């Protein structure tokens, strides 16, 4: 299984490569700034849900090597969140920090997105082997439960952003509900392992 991690790593970079390619050749469409920002947001949320899917899928398929992908998925989620935020602040608002602050305070969907980012930040910072050791497994696991509220905030951020057609965020919400439901199930069955 030596190939697994490098292969998934390369695959996970594809959305970014594709965006860069489109930007370079001017094929991001009629509203390139919007396309850039939204595509990055989409992938941030997808990787966050992928990270949450690793454990259920591993338990379900009994395919142990999957466990090695969990951290990578989480970090790619954070990576795309950072790019999403950077494209918003740097490209869309053009470093108008006052406008960003106003958005965070006033726009519920931005407040929720920022909340998600703030929850993910400590998780990314404590993702190294060294940090896990320093925190100790128990404290680390407790801290990383923050990924659940973060994912809820991420989906809510998307949901509250759309104008009228909520079909897409509903799909993300359903996937998240299944992933959280799975954990509830194991929690109910075997509380000592939760």
């Amino acid at each position, binding site marked *: 299984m030596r190939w697994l991690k490098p292969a998934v790593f390369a695959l996970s970079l594809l959305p970014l490569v594709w965006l860069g390619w489109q930007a370079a050749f*001017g094929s991001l469409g009629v*509203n390139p*700034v919007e396309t850039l920002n939204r595509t990055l947001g989409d992938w941030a949320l997808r990787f966050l849900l992928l990270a949450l899917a690793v454990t259920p899928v591993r338990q379900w398929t009994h395919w142990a090597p999957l466990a090695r992908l969990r951290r990578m998925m989480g970090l790619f989620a954070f990576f795309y969140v950072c790019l999403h935020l950077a494209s918003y602040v740097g490209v869309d608002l053009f470093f108008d920090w006052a406008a960003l602050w106003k958005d965070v305070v006033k726009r519920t969907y931005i407040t929720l997105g920022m909340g998600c980012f703030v929850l993910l930040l400590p998780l990314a910072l404590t993702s190294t082997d060294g940090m896990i050791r320093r925190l100790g497994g128990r404290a680390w696991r407790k801290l990383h439960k923050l990924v659940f509220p973060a994912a809820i905030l991420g989906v809510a951020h998307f949901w509250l952003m759309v104008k*009228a*057609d909520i079909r897409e965020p509903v799909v993300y919400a359903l996937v998240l509900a299944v992933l959280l439901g799975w954990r509830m199930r194991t929690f109910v069955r075997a509380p000592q392992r939760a």
Partner: protein
Amino acid sequence: MLIRPCPDLRENDVTDHALYVDRRRFLAGAAAVGTVLGAGRGLRAATSDDTPTPFEAVTTYNNYYEFGTAKEDPAVTAPGRLKTAPWSVAVDGECAKPGTIGLEDLIKPHKVEDRIYRLRCVEGWSMVIPWRGVQLSEVLKRFEPTSKAKYVEFTTLADREQMPGLRVPVLDWPYVEGLRLDEAVNPLTLLATGLYGKDLLPQNGAPLRLVVPWKYGFKSIKSIVRIRFTESQPLNSWQKYNRREYGFYSNVNPDVDHPRWSQANERRIGEFRRRPTLMFNGYGDQVAAMYAGMDLKANF
């Protein structure tokens, strides 16, 4: 005043050049982001630069939910599905001469004009579009609205066979819009049949649509099949969908935010930086008097 005929505007010149500039601007901007992180300043000052938006953009980036909710959908699904001929419009309500009238007969008696207008979408983007059409006031006059006629209600075609978007209950179909009578007969209000000197394409609301340049784009209803004079204020589709977020007037107003996003500025399609949004989309001289004394925050 932004009414001017544009007989000598050749679409290919505009399109190619504008696309070229637009691409370079985006690349330059992207490069700048890499190098001057944190060095940026606020929005740039208002400019009077109203170059028409490329034809390609105007005809591929559309909000026309009857043909799908993604901006790219209508240009893909509407052509070939929307049957624009024969087309007739039912005119009724508070008027002396109601009737159903064919498109030809509706337009023919009037002077067809080319007018370049800014279009500001409620979502925060904008375009500049060379429309072709007739002044709505001239058309409405023929039906002799009575003294009871205070408003004009417009309805879009709603045909499941032609419009795949109707299967999704995003809005309560058919799409309905309305204007106060004085707004409808304001000289700026256009009943458009074309853009860039050609007939409207299906995705742009062929064969007949409204253009109300000082209001958010959703007021400029597409593919009109019915015009009705009413005594009471029509309930327009977006207001029906969410009263808190969308009003009847929907005048472009940088000081009244949408509950979920700012209306203070906009992205002009093809430009990299946002630009400030103008009160009444810059048409205050022609329309502000109609709202004298009105609380525009309450009547959003």
